[in-house]
């Protein structure tokens, strides 16, 4: 039963107040994209055992989507940040590098 901090509300809430939304930082491909890119966008998932970037919605709170970096093997949460970005914040990357030196990057 996870707890995550909503970066908009500033409260730490439990999983039951949130709705999970799958892998974060997926780039949308639309008309004109290759079959491969489109398949990758919709289906191919990193699904790492380790550091994972994912989407959550503060569904029972402010209703906003935010992103989280979390270890799927230990459930440690490295940080949360607003969804209006195409890549994780630099300071979060630094923090993860310290905690998981061999994690291999977010892409």
């Amino acid at each position, binding site marked *: 039963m996870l707890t995550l901090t909503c970066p908009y*509300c500033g409260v730490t*809430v439990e999983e039951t107040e949130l709705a999970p939304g799958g892998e974060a930082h997926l780039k949308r491909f639309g008309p004109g994209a290759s079959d491969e890119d489109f398949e990758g966008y919709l289906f191919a998932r990193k699904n790492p055992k380790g550091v994972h970037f994912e989407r959550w919605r503060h569904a029972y*709170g402010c209703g*906003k989507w935010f992103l989280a970096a979390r270890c799927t093997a230990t459930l440690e949460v490295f940080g949360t940040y607003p969804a209006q970005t195409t890549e994780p914040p630099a300071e979060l990357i630094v923090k993860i590098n310290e905690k998981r030196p061999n994690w291999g990057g977010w892409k």
Partner: protein
Amino acid sequence: MSEAISALKGASHTGFATVAEAGLTGMISIRADLKSKALAKALKGLGLSTPGQRKVITADGRSVAWMSPDELLLICSYDEAPGLSQSLSEALAKEHSLVTNVSDARAMFTVSGEKGDEVLMKLCPVDFATFPEGEMRRTRAAQVAAALWRSGPQELSVICFRSVAAYMLGLLEVSSRKGGEIF
């Protein structure tokens, strides 16, 4: 307007705390840039100001609460809500904003009594021991969304959607039954 009735017509129960539907209540949702000067001005006209993160401010029988980074909820009397909604809409007309009267979409409840916190401790994943006055907490009460704040001495107010008002009252009633005191 005399034909308007709230979801539960003010039904209430008294156990170790009193739980009651608050009756018709005006509520206006304001989606806008919360740093907007026009918004601040409009609220000032009501004796209020733009609340900070999670804050609820009360003056002259009206309250305004921070609901999200781009949403406020103005709580007022039911009858003045259509007019206020209209005037706020006009005040923000020049900005990207959306003001909607949601008075009919919601139901409001009060939980009062010395042990009022204990009623909500059974329903909401919120630490009531540290839950301060002046804060609006949007959360979950059992299986539905709820927004709650300390609306008076030994009183909490809870807002939920109108369609689940009877469910909410059921939750509050069973959680406030005598014999169910926690401490």
